[in-house]
């Protein structure tokens, strides 16, 4: 019996692999396994190799594995491109139709299962996916009934006949594999799961769910990979809550519409990827200057320009922090787990209202799109804090507007929503006085600038960094952000096994950078390795600037479009130290 396993299914884009994958993994989730998925896809619609890899474990996991136990192949290309990943003794389950071949002498088993033939026999070749699910179930020696129940849920509304046919396909696949493999083997038999059904969710959905829970009722956005799923989730949910999603003409409209709506008092979201973020830069300054909250999600993908739109990268960090002309208060968050995607989404809305400034919530493609099991989301942790807000306002002195931009100690001034009696004030991107009237006076300018920037001094987030800090004299401190967390953890465990003392820090608050917190961690380590999916080491630069430690810091960078793998990271870091 084993405690974890990697399974991959591959074929042509647009062939419906996703449903196979969805049914299989939903069943595994029901059985109480932890799952972590990775989708390989490219920027074309039909055709082109695509694959989906799932790691299945009895323990929490947050990384894909370097190698593979089982490969389900719908074409020879899938075998050709992926077989090297198979561990010694791994298995390929392939459609007999294309006469699958493994390279001579390659140490893996090949089971040719007539996916297509069985499916066609049952009525339609489309069901070859289900045959593959059945075969996989058999290999892992899982209860086929669970799978069938999921199929019922998935296809129930299409009628019992459809359900039955699909289940027949599963059954046939199941039996066929048992037949040719000679029955279940211990090698692929998973220890039982804990029976807890978890959320099986992608980061974008967790963010969307967080937004709904945070009271976001409007989203204005423009489609882009890999952000669109947030919009797709919210368009399904918001109308039921009186809200809506507007697909705008571009990202400039998206963000300025969000600013208008936030000014109007509704928590409003926009989401995009790098190209859209770049287009939003001017408006981000408007939000900062008028102290109008806005939450912007940037799902990072391979850059620059159109770059590698379907690939992993973490290269918009600098743009998120520095990318508007002039100087504004701004908060940048970067969750590193699926649960944090949810909680940080809620927190982003609170921070935006509390500090009345733009909040950029970064994710990366792997975190946004990788489907994984999540620990239960604690609703009691969801609070809605709208910051300094006056719902009713006293009459103002003659000829005075409401002092929306009152000089305050914290830098935060009380907001009112348009429509409020006695609350009339002016907002402008031009430098202004306490009432929002344009002003070029030098003393006012300095005070206003100080007031706005002062907000950054008090930014309080629960965990600006998430530290696993076991040692006061660690040999290595690993620092990362976003989806690299789980991979770092696994690589770190290998170092620990080698007898090295390692600490780990995931930076969650990217800006204002928690310099003191990170510096304290640097102090406890001899060497620091900053792990990032970009080419220049943007996080390492931030650390150097705000926490020092220039001499200690080594950069572990990967920017070929793929996430780090645990073993790869371990080996590369070994070379570095």
């Amino acid at each position: 019996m084993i405690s974890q396993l990697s399974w991959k299914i591959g074929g042509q884009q647009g062939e419906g692999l996703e449903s196979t994958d969805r049914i299989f993994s939903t069943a595994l989730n029901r059985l109480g396994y932890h799952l972590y998925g990775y989708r390989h896809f490219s920027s074309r619609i039909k055709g082109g190799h695509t694959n989906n890899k799932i790691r299945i474990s009895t323990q929490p996991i947050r990384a894909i594995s370097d190698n593979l136990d089982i490969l389900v192949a719908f074409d020879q290309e899938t075998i050709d491109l992926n077989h090297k990943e198979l561990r010694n003794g791994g298995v390929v389950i392939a459609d007999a139709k294309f006469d699958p071949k493994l390279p001579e002498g390659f140490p893996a088993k090949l089971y040719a299962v007539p996916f297509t033939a069985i499916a066609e026999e049952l009525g339609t070749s489309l069901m070859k996916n289900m045959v593959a699910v059945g075969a996989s179930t058999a290999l892992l020696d899982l209860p086929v009934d669970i799978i069938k129940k999921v199929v019922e849920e998935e296809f129930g509304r299409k009628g019992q006949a459809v359900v039955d046919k699909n289940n027949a396909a599963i059954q046939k696949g199941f039996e066929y594999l048992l037949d040719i493999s000679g029955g279940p083997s211990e090698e692929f038999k998973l220890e039982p799961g804990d029976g807890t059904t978890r959320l099986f969710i992608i980061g974008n959905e967790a963010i969307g769910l967080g937004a709904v829970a945070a009271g976001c009722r409007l989203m204005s956005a423009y489609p882009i990979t890999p952000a669109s799923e947030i919009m797709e989730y919210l368009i399904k949910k918001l109308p039921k809550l009186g809200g809506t999603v507007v697909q705008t003409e571009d990202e400039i409209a998206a963000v300025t519409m969000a600013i208008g709506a936030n000014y109007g008092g509704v928590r409003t979201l926009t989401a995009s990827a790098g190209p859209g973020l770049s287009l939003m830069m001017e408006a981000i300054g408007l939000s900062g200057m008028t102290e109008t909250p806005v939450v912007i999600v940037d799902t990072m993908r391979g850059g620059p320009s159109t770059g590698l739109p379907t690939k992993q990268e973490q290269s918009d960090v600098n743009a998120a922090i520095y990318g508007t002309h002039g100087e504004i208060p701004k908060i940048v968050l970067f969750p590193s787990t699926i649960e944090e995607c949810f909680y940080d989404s809620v927190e982003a809305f609170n921070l935006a209202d509390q500090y009345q400034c733009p909040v950029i919530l970064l994710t990366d493609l792997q975190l946004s799109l990788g489907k994984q099991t999540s620990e239960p989301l604690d609703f009691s942790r969801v609070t809605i804090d709208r910051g300094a807000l006056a719902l009713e306002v006293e009459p103002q002195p003659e000829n005075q507007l409401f002092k929306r931009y009152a000089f305050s100690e914290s830098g935060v001034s009380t907001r009112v929503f348009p429509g409020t009696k006695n609350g009339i004030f002016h907002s402008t991107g031009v430098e202004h006085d306490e009432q929002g009237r344009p002003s070029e006076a030098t003393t006012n300018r300095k005070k206003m600038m100080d007031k706005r920037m002062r907000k950054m001094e008090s930014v309080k987030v629960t965990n600006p960094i998430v530290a696993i800090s076991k040692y006061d004299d660690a040999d290595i401190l690993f620092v990362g952000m976003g989806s690299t967390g789980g991979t770092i953890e696994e690589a770190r465990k290998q170092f620990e096994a080698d007898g090295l003392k390692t600490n780990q820090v995931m930076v969650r608050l990217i800006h204002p950078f928690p310099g003191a917190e990170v510096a304290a961690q640097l102090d406890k380590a001899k060497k620091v390795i900053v792990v990032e999916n970009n080419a220049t080491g943007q996080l390492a630069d931030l650390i150097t600037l705000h926490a020092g430690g220039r001499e200690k810091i080594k950069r572990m960078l990967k920017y070929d479009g793929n996430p780090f793998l645990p073993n790869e990271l371990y080996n590369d870091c070994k070379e570095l130290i």
Partner: protein
Amino acid sequence: MATFKDFRNNIKPNWCPGCGDFSVQAAIQRACANVGYEPEQVAVVSGIGCSGRISGYINAYGFHSIHGRSLPVAQGLKLANRELAVIASGGDGDGFAIGMGHTVHAIRRNIDVTYIVMDNQIYGLTKGQTSPRSASGFKTKSTPTGSIETTLSPLEMALAAGATFVAQSFSTDLKQLTAVIEAGMNHKGFSLINVFSPCVTFNKVNTYEWFKERVVSTDSFDGYDASNKMMAMQKVLETDGMITGIVYQNKEKPSYEQQLPGFQEIGLAKQNITLTKDQFDKLVAEFN
């Protein structure tokens, strides 16, 4: 009930004496009062330009945004708060150069915003460059030998884009101007109101006199039917775009908000946004 004086504040406009924008300001103030709004029920969102300053000169909520983006801001505001009367405004450069895309899409979207363009056929604030509204041959700092681009016709564009309310007026005709703004505010959907608002400092061609000699009110056409798009188009072409009054109005078409599934009369900003535990659990269960 509020009168137009209630929509005045004590901020002195920094427009040049004689600038056409003063009358636009006055007309908006009158129209707001005539429609029956209280100052706090109105929000004016503007772009950047001399004209863009207008949001600061009316006693109402004012949002002076960035160049060319008054429309998306205004639409967001209206979606957030349906109870508010939302006016968007700015210059011809703001709305027809950098903001052209938003203008077309706001027209298509038909959210209930009244958009007033102060059209002086030039860039005022940046001291006299060509605008998309400048006539061919018009000489400015940026086109010293005369503009060689085709002049944009806002009325043709709006009609082509499927506008439900298109009007034009002239800033000296306070009565007509007030009336069309009022009609625009009463219109359920997006209204585009182009206002000839002379720049006395930089535009020495399209002066008050120049306009006075050329504008033709729809009133002067026998049997003009503002609900007939083809007629509107024809008259716009015939008058070389100098037609004033309500040029076209489609009263049948519902606004964007009215068509939104689940969208409620009460402003979103006033709704309870807290989920119940039960609602949350149901949302979570979808991922199990």
